[in-house]
């Protein structure tokens, strides 16, 4: 299978704003490869460097050293983003637009034709179960509905790679289940999903391969089966890999 997401010795340092403070190292030589058609779980505790990695992949942050590419194109080129969809964590879309208008706006950015836009909007609203609310302004939506609109906007260009940053954060169990079902359907359609999360149960259910990152370093990578082979569960494996030692009661 072809590699569509690749990072090589990726290092990101953020300069401190305080005088004589050492720079904060967010990523320390991260090497990752994601192949076409797989659902890749990117795990790590808060502040591990998951979002920084995504920010580099999307061209929001320049790496201090190393390289990152999507579909063999350097991530700093806007064209590298033509075939990706991105759902950020906790985004509040333009409240004054309806879901349909929002999707139409993003479709214009991708340069889709009117007929293609209409067809995709119809399919996506069906996929995320928002047909009934497509004409309502987003400000009237629940959190779960807003997250599903986000998922629809990430899919408007029929992307080959979907980057999801904590897609179920803040959602109730039903909302989580719906998002999980959508990811499952995308997986069945052969889409590649790069999925940052710390919801281990979710990752275990939907991911083919998993990478665990801590303090900017890759600690483990492999299939869920390989990682949990020597542990009773993914949670135990995760805690051990990141070096967490439970406090005695």
């Amino acid at each position, binding site marked *: 299978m072809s590699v569509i997401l690749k990072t090589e010795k990726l290092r990101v340092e953020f300069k401190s704003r305080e005088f004589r403070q050492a720079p904060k190292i967010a990523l320390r030589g991260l090497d990752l490869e994601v192949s076409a058609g797989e659902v890749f779980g990117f795990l790590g505790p808060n502040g591990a460097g998951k979002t920084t990695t995504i920010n580099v992949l999307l061209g929001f942050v320049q790496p201090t050293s190393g390289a990152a590419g999507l579909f063999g194109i350097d991530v700093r080129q806007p064209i590298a983003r033509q075939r990706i969809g*991105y759902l950020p964590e906790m985004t509040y*879309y333009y409240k004054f637009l309806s879901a349909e208008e929002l999707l139409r706006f993003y479709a214009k*950015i991708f*340069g889709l034709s009117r007929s293609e836009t209409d067809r995709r909007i119809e399919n996506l609203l069906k996929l995320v179960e928002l047909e009934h609310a497509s004409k309502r302004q987003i400000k009237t939506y629940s959190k779960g509905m807003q997250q599903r609109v*986000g998922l629809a906007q*990430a899919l408007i260009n029929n992307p080959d790679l979907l980057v999801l940053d904590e897609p179920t954060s803040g959602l109730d169990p039903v909302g989580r289940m719906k998002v999980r079902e959508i990811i499952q359907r995308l997986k069945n359609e052969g889409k590649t999903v790069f999925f940052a999360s710390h919801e281990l149960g979710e990752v275990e259910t939907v991911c083919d391969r998993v990478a665990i990152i801590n303090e900017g370093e890759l600690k483990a990578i492999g299939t869920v089966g390989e990682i949990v082979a020597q542990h009773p569960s993914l949670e135990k494996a995760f805690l051990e890999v990141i070096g967490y030692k439970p406090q005695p009661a």
Partner: protein
Amino acid sequence: MRTVFALAGVVIKELYRRKDFYVLFILTIVICVVMASVNIYNDTEIIRYIKALCLLLIWISSLVIAITTTARQIPAEREQRTLLPLLAKPLTRTQLIFGKFLGCWLACGLVLVCFYAFFGVLAASREHAWPLLNYFQAAFLHWMVLGVVIAMTLLGSLVFAAPSSNATICFVLVTMILCVGRYLDEVALKMHEPLRSLVYVLYFAIPHLEWAFGMRNLIVHDWPMIGWNFVGLATLYLLAYAAIFLAAACLVFRRKAVN
């Protein structure tokens, strides 16, 4: 270009779905209609005062709309985190700046059409005349001035942290330019070096918007129109300033972290 127009379309939708414009428009109508309904001191030329007041309110309202709409564009995208999915699309930061500028500018153009249409009706109700070309000239230059103000505010929104501080600074700057901009050279003459040179530099550096503001007098006193060649030159002058502010905004935004 399609991307830039798509971004502009969202800004225009935002303007007509928010209450700001309607509040200012209705307020202007109410104040002007109330003032027009009474004739203080039985002055036969009272319509001139009403026209002056109406144009002043139009200028204030348009500046309020232009500055507040522009000042919140990029900070709101950042705060609501919509900037991230937007920049994750095949879109450059320069396109984003141009889209926001165009959206705010076109939105202000629509606002001016409404305001000047009301002004025309108000003036015609008393004077029974429609000097449409004069109104067009004044509205057109007014719109060009708003272009400079919008570009300046867009740059400010990338430099200053809070939209409120940016809006306040832009209001103060524009008010200063409109009120004292033309006298800066006279002020410089009365100063000693090196302050004199500094004030001179300031005089030549600032965009002189005050003469377009003074166009109100032409309409108020029914003076003849200015030559179209002067309108063309003034347009070029104002577009040059807008381009400088936009270029600076693009440079600042290119270096700015979005996360």
